[in-house]
């Protein structure tokens, strides 16, 4: 699974992208956020409030209860501030 980070999520995690193998119990987007939060200091800071993190799977916005696909690009970022 490819993960990409943007804005302060990227800054706190410390890198833009990474490829991870997820344990079997990580099924939904919400599970992924909890799993990431436990990966270390930067991750803990980035995902301290997982409910505010926005997620896109293969470049489409998804809700936190969405099931993760077997493969693909999952983007994690703060609420957008475009326009």
């Amino acid at each position, binding site marked *: 699974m490819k993960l*990409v980070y*943007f*804005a*302060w999520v990227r800054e706190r995690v410390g890198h833009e992208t990474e490829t991870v193998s997820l344990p079997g119990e990580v099924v939904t987007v919400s599970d992924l956020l909890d799993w990431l939060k436990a990966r270390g200091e930067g991750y803990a800071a980035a995902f301290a409030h997982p409910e505010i993190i926005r997620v*896109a799977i293969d*470049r*489409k*916005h998804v809700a936190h209860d969405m099931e993760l696909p077997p493969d693909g*690009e999952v*983007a994690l*970022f*703060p*609420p*957008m*501030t*475009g*326009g």
Partner: protein
Amino acid sequence: MKAASPIDVRVQAEDFDISAEIRKLAGERTDIGAVVTFTGRCRDEEGRLAALELEHYPDMAETEIARIAREALRRWNLAGLTVIHRFGRILPGQNIVLVVAASTHRKAALEAADFLMDYLKSRAPFWKKEHLTSGEPGQWVNAKTEDEEALAQWRKE
């Protein structure tokens, strides 16, 4: 004369020229009675801001804006729609985003431009970071609750 493809979406670092974009969209077309442009610019907030840095998700930005533009085309009878969103470092007084909406009638063009901007603010994958004139480290701009409320209003309709 009617144009074939009424949606033009671009994500770019460069500035845009509004007259040129209107010409591109509406040109000599004789079925367009109203052209609305909305330009969002970088403000200095009483001298506090030296610049905005716009980060974006390149693969997703155009796709997502095009999706929002298609939704506007479904809701309003539009002759054409252009959306240009810049990224990178933008100084106070410079342009950030442009929406051009063309229609037979005015209200459709005005409402579509308003709708587009509400959705761009909360759905297009862009993030603004402030650079301060004081030299202190700038912050990421916080999303506003009122932006989400603006979206909710369109969903009710």
